């Protein structure tokens, strides 16, 4: 199986997880989307040297992971896949910021390393939260919820079509790389020049398919938005989930939760 095949199967696995019946799955997608947005807002609101203060927020993804019955290895695979982007974003911090930020006994830790660790923590928290939202709700339901929460229609339409055609294009890309592999020496992967040509062809195929799909949509009265059949029902459980998570995020942000937990357990932060 080629890497592209594996990637397509991974994308499918999130949708398959979302189709299972779990307590988190039963919550209204709007509640889950709103809580995830609040969580992201809380994570990014911390200062760049506030690592310890951020740690209690790991309780949220841990709870959703458990209640949503999402296998941890699926989450770690995605985190590993996306980690180079976070590493790239923070790799120069230790070089640029060498002033001592904290001292751990005899060890002076430069601010650059602290902010680098902060970027990695934020990456883990935010990406986990979004992946868990997808794994416990489903991509299409998340899009529908965002639409109901006021996201622009054109953006939602783009997201939905992207999801639908991601699988077709990944199939097409997999077929092209397979055809190349069968005709290449020793079954090696394509070099950079061949990749450029494959990517160009894929782009042209995507453009052709886009034109044909647009014709099919126009033939059925498309007016710029994708109408939805889905109806949402808000319940008390959703209100409790929203209020409970919101309260926890406020406490984690302004209540010095990490220090209190540390005091409680006899550690000094």
């Amino acid at each position, binding site marked *: 199986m080629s890497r592209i095949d594996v990637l397509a199967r991974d994308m499918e696995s999130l949708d398959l997880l979302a189709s299972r019946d779990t307590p988190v799955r039963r919550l209204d997608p709007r509640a889950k989307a709103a809580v995830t947005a609040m969580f992201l807002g809380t994570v990014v609101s911390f200062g760049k040297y506030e690592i310890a203060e951020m740690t209690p927020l790991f309780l949220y993804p841990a709870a959703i992971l458990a209640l949503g019955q999402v296998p941890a290895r699926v989450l770690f695979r995605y985190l590993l896949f996306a980690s180079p982007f976070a590493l790239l974003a923070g790799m120069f911090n230790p070089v640029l910021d060498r002033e001592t930020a904290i001292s751990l006994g005899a060890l002076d830790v430069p601010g650059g390393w602290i902010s680098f660790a902060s970027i990695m923590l934020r990456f883990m928290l935010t990406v986990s939260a979004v992946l868990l939202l997808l794994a416990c709700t489903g991509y299409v339901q998340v899009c529908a919820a965002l639409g109901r929460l006021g996201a622009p229609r054109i953006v939602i339409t783009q997201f939905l*079509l992207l999801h*639908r*055609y991601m699988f077709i294009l990944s199939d097409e890309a997999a077929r092209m790389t397979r055809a190349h592999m069968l005709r290449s020496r020793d079954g090696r992967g394509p070099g950079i020049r061949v990749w450029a040509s494959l990517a160009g062809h894929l782009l042209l195929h995507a453009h052709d398919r886009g034109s*044909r799909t647009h*014709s099919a949509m126009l*033939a059925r009265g498309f007016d710029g938005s994708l109408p939805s059949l889905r109806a949402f029902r808000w319940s008390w459980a959703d209100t409790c989930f929203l209020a409970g998570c919101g309260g926890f995020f406020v406490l984690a942000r302004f209540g010095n939760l990490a220090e209190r937990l540390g005091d409680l357990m006899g550690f000094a932060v």
Partner: protein
Amino acid sequence: MSHHIVEAADLEYSYPDGTPALKGVSFRIEHGESVGIVGANGAGKSTLLMHLNGCLLAGKGTVRVGDFPVTGQTLPQVRRSVGTVFQDPDDQLFMPTVEEDVAFGPLNMHLPPAEVESRVSASLESVNALHLRKRPPYKLSGGEKRAAAIATALSMSPDILVMDEPTSGLDPRARRKLIGLLAGFMHTKIIASHDLDMIYALCGRTIVLHEGRVAADGPTASILANHDLLAGCGLELPLSLQGCPVCANIKKAE
């Protein structure tokens, strides 16, 4: 009322790069007719079909669907009358689930939810695909995708059904099932295909296109039996009219 009539008069069309695709095509299709459009690759079949639902507009000449000429202003009425099934079902099935795809047209017609639901169920049932309604389209087999694509057109209650290569990519059994299904539809049907046996089975009339012109227009039985005409247009007799190869070999041996 002439709402099931399709008429092209001296229709011409050239692609933006200047390649002429249709060079003066004229025909009139009456209510309830089943018409096959056949021709070699590049003869202009798909281009012609795209004019019938207004995805392409005539460069010269006119196309009429029922009471309306096909122009930019009449597209909503024309598209309500003409249900199109495209060659590749993956182009037509763009929503996350089959039922949402089938509901796409009725929802765009702003029908009430109960009516949308009833049309979705009826359309899927008519193509024996009710069990597929919650499935994502990319998970379906070729035959199932084709059935779902036809249901997306039927849900708009069209008067005229236009199909581009409906049997392409289907295995023999799925193809046979589809032919049986289409035979049961009472719509005016316009089917473009290279599958001449399917045209022979379904269409009472056939239009042969050759290099953007109508080379012949008449009863299917006589047109598809005309070896010289078909050969001149880059086609062959349908397999069902070519005789049994085993018997031919026996005769030769004798």
